[in-house]
């Protein structure tokens, strides 16, 4: 069976399920200003420099879900270019969640690296 692009995309999509939330939290954790969806999406895209690992559109439902969970607060400001923008800020719970998730991520990454590079001891 030939391995084609669609399989790569599917794998990437499955990996992204939790990771988009993690990187969104990271961006907001580091930012001193409130950010709106478009800015967050663009910052992620810039950090990515080149091939997009995920679609910017996936950021919005994640922002909404994190906000519903109390990990972000938001407020609406009018904008001259379109509908009013929703600006997000990370809450104390959000920072705690980010700290917890980063630990899990580091452990997972190291573990996967060891296995994938055949360095299991």
């Amino acid at each position, binding site marked *: 069976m030939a391995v084609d692009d669609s399989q790569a995309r599917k794998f990437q999509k499955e990996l992204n399920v939790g990771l988009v939330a993690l990187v969104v939290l990271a961006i907001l954790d580091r930012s001193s200003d409130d950010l709106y969806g478009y800015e967050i999406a663009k910052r992620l895209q810039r950090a990515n420099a080149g091939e*997009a690992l995920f*679609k910017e*559109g996936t950021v919005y439902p994640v922002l*909404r879900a994190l906000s*519903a969970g109390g990990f972000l607060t938001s407020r609406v400001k009018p*904008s001259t270019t*379109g509908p009013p923008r*929703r600006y997000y800020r990370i809450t104390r719970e959000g920072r705690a969640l980010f700290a917890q998730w980063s630990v899990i991520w580091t452990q997972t990454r190291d573990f996967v690296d060891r296995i994938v590079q055949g360095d299991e001891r």
Partner: protein
Amino acid sequence: MSRPAPRSIDDYLATLRAELAGDDPAVIQDALYDAEEHLRAEAAANPHVSEAELLERVAATYGRPEEIAAGYRDTETTVARALQPPASRRLASPHPLSRFFAVYVDPRAYSSLFFMVLSLVTGVAYFTFAVTGLSLSIGLAILIFGVPVFIAFIGIARVISLGEGRLLEAVSGERMPRRPIHPGRSGTLWEQIRAMLRDARTWTTLAYLLLMLPIGIIYFVTAVTGVSVGVSFLLVPLVGVAQRLDWWLPWGDERILFSPRWLDTPVGWIFCVVFGAAVLTTLLHVARGVVGLHARAAKVLLVT
């Protein structure tokens, strides 16, 4: 199922709406709002790029409409599953009587009752707002400042309907939009007014605001009557015993006479307690059911 790639922002939003057809209208409203926010920001950031080229770029970065639709559908089901309280355990309770009284541990029953009491206040406010706004808009239509009055009136009505939706989701659990209606196609003032007038939702929203007065009165009367009758009957034995033992009698020498007299006997007391409890429990069931139906009807008028 492949549609032609959208060539403009309005086109993109229409395709996204078509992709989401059949989904929860609240999700559709949120998804369209987010997409429009992003696309307009993208257009503003790249003023020299043609809209068709911009949309091509957007398909690669933001995502094609079908990808976005799938994303919202997935996130919505995951989040809904995570946030929903485990209701199955209570429903599975075997005894019909324990199922009947299980309503006392359901927070939704109390919040629904609260909504019924509150709806008199909101009903009066909505009705006043709708009537004032409508008459001002029509009355001033012949003058030039009838136009901003009308636009402000519809704008505030949309904000109110978003707020009412949030309130109803909080008390009933029915999914409601978290974002206002997206302003729609940009155009001249007249085009926007014409779009507002032609939008069926403008009129259903106004109908909802007007209807909330009579409905609010009925809800308020039902809730207050039910609570007073139920609590009064529950207190009968207490009053009966207190009068017999000459305990604390705030009403001085006056005695409360029960009619018929047999209510003030041990058998009557048992009857009163059972009856009062039945009234209160039924009221909570009615409140939960009615507000659930109300939320679904509100969704049809305010969202769909």
